[in-house]
């Protein structure tokens, strides 16, 4: 049975359509991360699932039950907010217990549930404290605890780590993943951070302007981005996207004055078809017989360095190579055919090879 199912979900605010038809099905216990730039509709989607916004059209089903017209409290969900949204005047215990109290659970049962959740999260010593006496990471844990004690059918996370510093974010990211695996609760996690998206999700949903553009495993999204938007959004630094023309029966792309061989790939488009060639900065290799690019800026990142090449006003190329590699004013590079992506210039969509493609899962 599907943990969460969305059918044709749309949401407009006045004449402004934020969600333009979202269909989605999550397996029971699956963690799906929704990622996208701000304004892509990812938070609205989460709020519609939570029942905090009413959809303009479409249905929401949680654990096989249609909850579209139900109040948030009747949907059997729990939500973790970006700013934690803890009740400031209540102790940690009361924060976690409040929802259970409203549901009229017996005191002993509330006590047991809160104790279990706080043991899981290492909050036992903090139960009597007020939220303002806690650090950011501890508040985050309380917010998680408040979600866990409800024992919901669905967890909703709205950028829960954005307010934490970088180090704590990495730590909490791991904790959330471990907890979700252990509790096996279907989860929807919204973030704009692609590292969180790649590390947390069983699957990834990339959204762009209210439309889901790709739904796949993180590896798949990285290896085979569905269009130029996903290609530019996932991966840091972003994938190089160079305009060019298809040639030699669809086995070569002409970029500027260089012919780039697609190796075993062959694309089913006439020669001269305008395309965009994509290659990730980490896949570009230095090659004495390759095409020449003038170096503009070099950034040192520690183990690696980023080389920005190109002439002003023309296509730019970024390389990620080992730090300390000797460089001159101009570099010669080549693009290994196994790592080349080709997109249609008009639609931005990925071309699939009709010959043998790059071996990636």
């Amino acid at each position: 049975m599907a943990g969460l199912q969305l059918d044709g979900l749309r949401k407009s605010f006045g004449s402004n359509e934020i969600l333009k038809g979202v269909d989605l099905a999550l397996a029971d216990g699956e963690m799906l991360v929704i990622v996208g730039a701000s304004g892509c509709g990812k938070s609205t989607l989460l709020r519609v699932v939570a029942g905090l916004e009413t959809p303009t059209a479409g249905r929401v089903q949680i654990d096989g039950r249609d909850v579209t017209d139900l109040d948030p409290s009747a949907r059997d969900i729990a939500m973790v907010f970006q700013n934690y949204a803890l009740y400031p005047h209540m102790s940690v215990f009361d924060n976690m217990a409040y929802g259970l109290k409203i549901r009229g659970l017996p005191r002993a049962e509330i006590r047991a549930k809160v104790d279990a959740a706080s043991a899981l999260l290492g909050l036992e010593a903090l139960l009597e404290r007020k939220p303002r006496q806690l650090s950011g990471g501890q508040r985050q844990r309380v917010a998680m605890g408040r979600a866990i004690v409800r024992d919901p059918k669905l967890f909703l996370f709205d950028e829960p780590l954005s307010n934490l510093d970088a180090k704590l974010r990495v730590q909490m990211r791991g904790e959330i993943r471990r907890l979700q695996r252990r509790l096996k609760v279907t989860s929807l996690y919204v973030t704009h951070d692609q590292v969180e998206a790649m590390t947390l999700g069983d699957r990834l949903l990339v959204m762009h302007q209210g439309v889901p553009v790709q739904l796949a495993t993180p590896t798949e999204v990285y290896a085979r981005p569905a269009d130029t938007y996903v290609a530019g959004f996932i991966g840091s630094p972003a994938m190089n996207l160079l305009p060019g023309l298809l040639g030699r029966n669809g086995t070569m792309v002409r970029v500027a004055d260089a012919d780039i061989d697609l190796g075993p790939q062959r694309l089913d488009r006439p020669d001269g078809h305008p395309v965009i060639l994509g290659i990730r900065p980490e896949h570009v290799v230095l090659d004495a017989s390759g095409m020449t690019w003038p170096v503009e800026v070099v950034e040192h990142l520690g183990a690696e360095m980023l080389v920005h090449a190109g002439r002003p006003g023309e296509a730019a190329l970024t390389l990620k190579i080992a730090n300390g590699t000797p460089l001159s004013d101009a570099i010669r590079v080549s693009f290994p055919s196994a790592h080349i992506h080709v997109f249609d210039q008009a639609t931005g969509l990925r071309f699939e090879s009709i010959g043998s493609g790059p071996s990636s899962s």
Partner: protein
Amino acid sequence: MRRRTLNLIPHAVMILAILLFALPIWIAIAGSTQDSAAIARGDVSLIPNLSGLGVYRDVLMNGSAGAGPVWRALLVSAGMALAIAFGKIALSLPSAYAVTFFRFPFRMAAFWLIFLTLMLPVEVRLIPTFQVMSSLDLINSFTGLTIPLIASATATLLFRQTFLAVPDELVEAARIDGAGPLRFLRDILIPISGANIAALFVILFVYGWNQYLWPLLVATDPKLDTVVISIVKMIGVDTATEWNKVMATAVLALIPPVAVVLLMQRWFVKGLTEGDK
């Protein structure tokens, strides 16, 4: 050392200001224990005459020429100030809650109507308000004394500002937890607005306690004299004024609002510094 001389000037200014504020109060305290005739001559000693302290017992129990016993007036004043403070808070909490958190037809119209009453305090609409109270047969009653002063917008506006600062996520978290509107008001909104409620209570209590014009007009029955009215009545036009009793009453009238400010201040400063939001 330069610092020390620089500090001297502000200190001198402060001491002067304190004297300026404290001296009249001290004169009232000292004067209340002295001979009425001496005060009338302008002959007030700054040293209290401890044997004259009995005047407090006297005014509390018997009052003075022209006014009844002061304990009664104090009771009326306290009742009025508390009724106004609690009444206004009780009225403006739900109204501010409604205009801030709920979408209903003519919401902004309702808000502006409430806002408009700010420009029309009782003093401005004195005669029509008296007319209304008279038609309702509320002249010379405690209800007539307090109701018109309760209905005003100040508190509603202040609570609206407080409520607007409540993060949306808090409201949403409570919705997901299953708290209905009244439960949210009681369990979350009122507790986190505690500091503001306390601050407002102080302001409204002092406002109510110091009312003069409306009580003067609406309550002619001496049983409903507030302590402020009593002081005025003691200053006789025909009879000789017992100035020591006037001063004693003034000192007594001062104590409750000062006490409220001091007691509540501790409470709301605590609320503010602990940063509830």
